[in-house]
């Protein structure tokens, strides 16, 4: 079957694992190998290429209902045998003191393969050509002496995972991911304004070089620099209660922080209360709670092939299936692992146990969480507003530890007055509470306003684990939102 993991490695892992797997209630091995490359150009000067190759395995066992895990990069037979022994030791230590009796957890037993769809591999492009592209983008930025900093970068990654259970499950998955980024800073009179495209919480996808075409890299330098300069001369965003249109590169953070994290089942069950936080959502809300207006339709969609967190299975081996999370505003499903699901059997759960690498256990994570398109064109969204603001590109995010009280800032704003777009405004921000905000969703943009984006560095867990999530959304209109601007003159 294998053609994703190196064939010899696959056979060696399988046969070694089968020979060293202890006779316990459950035993799995998850092998993970990732090779990534980061290239960047800053103010016209290259930074050296940074390659990262990370490879290792985690063995998980259940002994008399207690689970233990151990991970290492030593994949020799002796190394894997030691790993199994350590995992057993961990399980035996916590036996009798464990929160969950894993004998009641139904661990998935699936087999199959998944691979990102790649039209043109990033490996088919030479390092020199990639640097050439970055230099070209960056060279278009310094259009004015007030442009004081600019940089372009490109991160690419190929990750391969093999998952075996002692009783026969066998899954291989390969992920090709790509993330370009451009940032331009303009400065005058004691104030800086930065405009970005892509990067930390925006444009990231699965695929190959073809993704860069959707990024419109060739035209970005000039327009991004021009927008940074426009912000320098712009007034601050007005303050007050008004209507708000959020573009997809801000919608993604709104979805991520106030829907995605709020619906992670381990937060709902309190596992994250010491670090990443809890949730205002309670198990009894699923199936009946009006999370948002009837226009709100949110889907967990691992099947969208170009999205950052697409997969065939989650990291516990559960099939990754497109499922409704919120339908017509009503809360339908949580996001979570088999272990969390077993703790609240009545709650419908989309399978999203995910781990970023071999050295962290899968926990309840956001995968691809998308807001479905509506019927309004961008012109209709704007045309329906007497007084409001359009905001795009997240620059600041803050939300309380129950995912309720949030405040977000954006790079770019534009006033709406009597149904027409007005002046550009700087430092736009808004604040609110999760449920009233989503209930104020009053129009959803059509397919022409829809963009596929993501959050590549979502942090959570103890030990902490950073993982990529996908978010796709149209532009959306919210009514009566508390909007504010900056203090800068």
């Amino acid at each position, binding site marked *: 079957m294998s053609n994703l993991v190196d064939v010899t490695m696959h056979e060696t892992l399988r046969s070694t694992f089968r020979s060293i797997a202890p006779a316990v209630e459950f035993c799995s091995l998850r092998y993970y190998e990732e090779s990534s490359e980061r290239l960047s150009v800053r103010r016209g000067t290259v930074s050296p290429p940074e390659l990262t190759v990370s490879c290792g395995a985690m063995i998980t066992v259940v002994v008399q209902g207690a689970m233990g895990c151990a*991970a290492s990069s030593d994949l020799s037979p002796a190394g894997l045998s030691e790993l199994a022994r350590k995992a057993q030791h961990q399980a035996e230590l916590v036996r009798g003191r464990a929160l969950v009796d894993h004998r009641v957890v139904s661990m998935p037993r699936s087999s199959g393969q998944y691979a990102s769809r790649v039209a043109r591999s990033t490996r088919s492009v030479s390092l020199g050509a990639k640097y050439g592209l970055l230099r070209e983008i960056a060279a278009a930025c310094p259009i004015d002496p007030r442009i004081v900093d600019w940089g372009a970068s490109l991160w690419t990654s190929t990750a391969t995972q093999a998952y075996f259970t002692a009783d026969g499950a066998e899954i291989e998955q390969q992920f090709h991911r790509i993330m370009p980024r451009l940032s331009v800073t303009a400065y005058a009179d004691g104030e800086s304004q930065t405009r970005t495209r892509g990067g930390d919480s925006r444009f990231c996808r699965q695929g190959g070089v073809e993704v860069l075409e959707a990024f419109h890299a060739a035209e970005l330098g000039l327009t991004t620099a021009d927008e940074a300069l426009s912000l320098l001369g712009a007034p601050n965003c007005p303050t007050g209660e008004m209507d708000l249109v959020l573009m997809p590169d801000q919608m993604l953070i709104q979805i991520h922080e106030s829907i995605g994290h709020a619906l992670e089942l381990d937060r709902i069950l309190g596992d994250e209360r010491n670090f990443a936080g809890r949730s205002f959502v309670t198990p009894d809300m699923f199936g009946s709670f009006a999370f948002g207006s009837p226009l709100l339709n949110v889907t967990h969609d691992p099947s969208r092939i170009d999205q950052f967190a697409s997969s065939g299975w989650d990291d516990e081996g559960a099939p990754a299936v497109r499922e409704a999370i919120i339908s017509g505003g009503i809360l339908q499903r949580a996001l979570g692992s088999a272990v969390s699901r077993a703790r609240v059997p009545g709650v419908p759960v989309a399978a999203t146990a995910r781990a970023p690498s071999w050295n962290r256990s899968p926990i309840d994570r956001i995968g691809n969480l998308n807001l479905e398109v509506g019927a309004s064109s961008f012109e209709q969204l704007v045309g329906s507003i007497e007084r409001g603001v359009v905001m795009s590109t997240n620059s600041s995010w803050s939300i309380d530890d129950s995912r309720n009280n949030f405040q977000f800032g954006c790079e770019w704003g534009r006033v709406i007055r009597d149904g027409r777009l007005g002046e550009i405004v700087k430092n736009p921000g808004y604040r609110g509470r999760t449920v009233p905000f989503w209930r104020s969703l009053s129009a959803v943009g059509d397919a022409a306003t829809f963009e596929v984006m993501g959050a590549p560095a979502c942090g959570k867990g103890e030990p902490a684990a950073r993982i990529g999530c996908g978010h796709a959304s149209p532009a959306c209109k919210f009514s009566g939102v508390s909007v504010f601007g900056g203090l800068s003159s």
Partner: protein
Amino acid sequence: MKDYFLEVAAGVEQMTRSDEVVLSWFAAEESDFLRFNVGAVRQSLAVRQLVWTLSLFHDRRRTEASVTLTGHARADLAALEALLGRLRSGLADVPEEPHFLYEHRVTSSSQETEGSLPELGEVLDAVLSSKGLDLVGAYAGGPIYRGFANTLGARHWRAVPAFNLSWCLYGETPVAMKSSYAGSTWNRGLVEAKMGFAREGLASLNEPPRQLTPGNYRAFLAPEALAEIFAALAWGGFGLESRLSKRSALLRMIEGDASLSRLVTLKENARDGLACAFQREGFVRPDAITLIDAGQLAAPLVSPRSAQEFGVETNGANRDELPEALDLEPGDLAERDAMAALGTGVYVSNLWYLNYSDFSACRLTGLTRFASFWVENGRAVAPLEVTRFDDTAYRFLGENLEALTIERHLIVDDSAYGERSTSSMRAPGALLRAMSFTASARSS
């Protein structure tokens, strides 16, 4: 582990050609992780990881790669030789880099902190000894290793046995007593004392939480809360690169248009921190660098790359020019007098999720977390509903900073993204004449 590091470093030296220089960075740990929820173990994990980074310099070009290793020197040297070959083959495609700089002096150091880490069974006994508590938290423990070597002969080594236990106790309300205990030598008595203190504190959380109406309030920030503020300021706040590229949140201080209170003197204190004193290009950090001196911006953190680009000396900063051992000088307010000095206002034990609401104005927002209190006449009368603040650091750490405490807490970063952190901050508490709060969680 040190013998292994030295053997592999020598092997890398042997595989290097005469016209090349190769820098090696080694980061390894043997970690046990335990997670707790509702007074029981939620997850347990043991991780052994070794990461070796090679930086190849040749003909004004540099390329770099890191790889996970097994801990068996012979096999790992073969992997590194293959990696070095891959770097060499790609080097011609790499543009010349004008700003690279590495330490040419052949220096060496070795620092192995003594300590005594607990067996996991001991941790479980200590944490779970009190039955019936809604305890949630995490333990991370085990040795952490860092090494630097170059093919000129330099060798630096640091080994520290470290543990970090962080936990919350919940009572009847969603407000928790937060505690932490970190170090290199485990003391069961200290854990029990902290646990007892937290248990007693739970009783104070039973009152209905107090909601604030938006406005300015007197406030006392506990050291853990103040450390969150400085962690946010550190995002580009103290590096030379961000200063000169106008991407610093402290822009107005850089321009001379703003300052903090004279009470604020902040250092990067490499001597007393947990992080290693050397960095990836082989430079050794000085014992201390004053970043803010009596409220005025002082020296920046300067990485080797910035040093080369801007024509100044490096002070051994890491590549991101982020501090790793911040140290805020103490004031003259005794911790025991803090509540009386606060009088009526807000006692903030922890802050959470800070970010900038106006970067150029250094205006920060964030939320209270865990057991924060509304205080009247020096006495905590009710826990505080989670509340958002939104204010400029120039105001609340400037004209409104009334006092800092004499006592300081060492706050060890418990983050473990990819690897366990060794960053820390030593911070006092801060009494503020006013801090601007926008709304409680239920009323915004």
